[in-house]
């Protein structure tokens, strides 16, 4: 089906409850419905039309039309469409029907707009505070437009602490985090353990919350946001950079020149290479196999060197601007890149040959962290986790962007559903990335690398973009605004969805496997915790009154 047919189907079922539909270029469409039938339309889209849930977004539009906007984004992977289902909500006491009973994957997204914007999801199965710190006063919503980005709210209570749920009977509590040698970033998994078996888990995260979305709306401008977006994540930075630039380009119809699209593809695939190589090394390190960890890092190092030669930095490429890229790949760099890729391929083939038949490593990874097709569909799991369960979703093929519609590659799928399956998928995806880079280097067209933008960016346009990060699909949603900055920018990183599936993956498994199961989704907590405000750290300095200083100091 295409967009027109889907809209006709929905209009047949819901008549004039559908207020407005827009079909935009690049196979995206937006539907605005009445708030009371939002849940029914979601049910039809999710169950009957078999869409995949991406995220839910809340927008404060009170200064433009007096209310809030709630959007649920879905993807139709087999028909290559992205859709945003929106509804306008009353401004004074905003509430919307929760869709968590139909789409369990929207659990966190709805809690997030409840915490940050105050839009109450009525009927949510687990309405507990997710994002804001414990002492944050109720009734203060940081992402609303009337809350300045650098203010500390009154009534911040430093003594209020988090209330954990009760443990199931007969279980010992084993805290995992926030400080643990395996985790790079703080996250707290409270495991309920019986003997050596894990019976349940409660996750408490969002400790590395930096307020990037609020900064994007109030402080930074269009061309400065890619630098901030890149720092959402330490290892998939380029993805956020490109996804944001593409979302704005999608919103206003800027076409970046073909050469810049090829360059974006090459850098994205380079990033995928080093991320997967790092992950394989990390998985081996966690299972005690340090030799393979060292070899993976040794093989990965030339990728960092060539990235440094192309973009000036090993990891934060600072690649995109709206309408193009900043760095060019010259002839010599092209040659050098081909050599680096060639050597990488031979070394990696040796490693893969050695690891595939290794029964010692298989014993540690088979049957661990199982996520089957049903969990993938319900919790909208993404990336290698889904592909290892046999679900072939890949945004490079389903929602093509940059130069992916001009290169050929296979989507690697495995049926094991466990950590071993994810290991296999990631190892073979390295070969696919090498294939893509080779094709891009061959097909790259001469030309300029930056589109010439002559007009100011129009206000109030919507744009969406889905980019395949090494961990899954990364989705950015942008509403363009005044003063050279977006009105709303929402980032949904892949780990955000995958983490919601972790408690089910580690249930009834051994404690020793918990680290491995957690690491197998390749968690990037920095990607997950990137929302709302209050940057109390000394980065944003402002003069505080003595009382505020006291509160701050005690909280720290």
């Amino acid at each position, binding site marked *: 089906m295409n967009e027109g047919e889907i809209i006709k189907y929905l209009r047949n079922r819901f008549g004039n409850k559908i207020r407005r539909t827009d079909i935009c270029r690049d196979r995206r469409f937006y539907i605005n419905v009445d708030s009371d039938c939002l849940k029914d339309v979601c049910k039809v889209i999710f169950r009957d039309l078999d869409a995949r849930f991406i995220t839910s977004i809340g927008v404060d539009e009170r200064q433009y039309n007096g209310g809030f906007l709630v959007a649920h984004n879905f993807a139709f992977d087999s028909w290559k469409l992205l859709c945003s289902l929106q509804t306008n909500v009353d401004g004074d006491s905003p509430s919307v029907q929760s869709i968590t009973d139909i789409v369990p994957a929207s659990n966190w997204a709805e809690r997030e707009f409840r915490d940050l914007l105050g839009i109450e999801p009525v009927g949510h199965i687990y309405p507990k505070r997710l994002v804001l710190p414990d002492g944050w006063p109720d009734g203060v919503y940081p992402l609303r437009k009337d809350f300045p980005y650098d203010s500390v709210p009154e009534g911040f209570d430093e003594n209020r602490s988090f209330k954990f749920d009760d443990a199931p009977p007969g279980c010992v509590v084993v805290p995992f985090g926030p400080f643990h040698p395996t985790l790079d970033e703080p996250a707290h998994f409270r495991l309920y353990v019986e003997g050596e078996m894990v019976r349940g888990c409660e996750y408490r995260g969002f400790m590395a919350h930096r307020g990037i979305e609020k900064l994007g709306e109030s*402080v*930074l*401008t*269009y*061309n*400065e*946001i890619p*630098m*901030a977006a890149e*720092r959402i994540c330490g290892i998939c930075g380029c993805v956020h950079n490109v996804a944001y630039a593409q979302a704005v380009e999608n919103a206003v119809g800027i076409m970046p020149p073909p050469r810049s699209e090829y360059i974006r593809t090459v850098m994205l695939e380079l990033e995928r290479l080093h991320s997967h190589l790092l992950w394989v090394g990390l998985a081996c390190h966690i299972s005690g196999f340090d*030799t*393979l960890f060292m*070899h993976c890092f*040794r093989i990965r*190092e030339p990728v960092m*060197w060539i990235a*440094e*030669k*192309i*973009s*000036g*930095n090993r990891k*934060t490429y*600072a690649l995109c*601007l*709206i*309408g193009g890229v*900043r*760095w060019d790949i010259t002839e010599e760099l092209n040659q050098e890149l081909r050599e680096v890729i060639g050597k990488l391929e031979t*070394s990696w083939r*040796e*490693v893969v*040959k*050695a*690891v*595939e*038949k*290794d*029964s*010692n490593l298989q014993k540690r990874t088979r049957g661990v962290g199982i996520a089957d097709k049903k969990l993938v569909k319900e919790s909208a799991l993404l990336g290698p986790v889904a592909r290892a369960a046999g679900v072939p979703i890949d945004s490079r093929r389903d929602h093509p962007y940059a130069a992916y519609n001009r290169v050929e590659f296979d989507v690697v799928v495995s049926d094991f559903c466990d950590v071993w399956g994810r290991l296999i998928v990631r190892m073979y995806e390295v070969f696919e990335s090498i294939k893509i880079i080779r094709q891009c280097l061959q097909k790259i067209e001469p030309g300029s690398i930056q589109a*010439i*933008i*002559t*007009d*100011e*960016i129009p206000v109030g346009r919507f744009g969406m973009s889905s980019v395949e990060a090494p961990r899954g699909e990364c989705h950015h949603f942008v509403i363009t605004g005044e*003063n*050279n900055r977006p009105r709303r920018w929402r980032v949904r990183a892949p780990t955000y969805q995958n983490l919601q599936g972790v408690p089910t993956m580690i249930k009834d498994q051994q404690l020793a496997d918990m680290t491995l199961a957690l690491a197998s989704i390749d968690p990037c907590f920095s990607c997950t915790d990137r929302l709302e405000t209050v940057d109390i750290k000394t*980065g944003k*300095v*402002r*003069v505080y009154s003595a009382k505020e200083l006291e509160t701050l100091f005690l909280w720290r």
Partner: protein
Amino acid sequence: MSFISKIRETLICLKAGRVTLPYPYQPRPAPEKFRGRPIFDASKCIGCAGCANNCPAREILVLDICQEIRILKYLGRRCTYCGRCADVCPENAITMGKDYETATNNIADIQQKLELFMSTCQRCGRCFKEPSPLEQLKLKGYRFDDLANERWIFKSKSYLDNFKVSDDIHIELD
């Protein structure tokens, strides 16, 4: 068989050899396009503040002491070495250096302060030729960032405090 896999894994190292580099006992220079610490050339700078307005980290401060003198200060604290200042400078007065060993006890080693003599252009921003409408200067007029407390102030004025010409409009952009 697992045994053969293990032998294969042991032998990988023979082909690779020893890869440890002797840094820091031997220097390791950065490649050509490396984005290190930005270096400001005062002789080329025209004081347009394009770099200050387009710095994502707000690390370049601008202060007009009087009509003729503008101070541009680069604070090295949060600089992410993104290179936007160098991109946007109309006079190519900023180059990204090759310095990556910038640890120091004294932040003044990294900071750079330029004192610029401004001729009679009334700081209208016209000397800044922006590459695209997305880099427009939004603050046209006299700037008064707080150098003592190292804070960016999102305002500019059409007059300086001690040179108040008339009850003019207070330009507060952002």
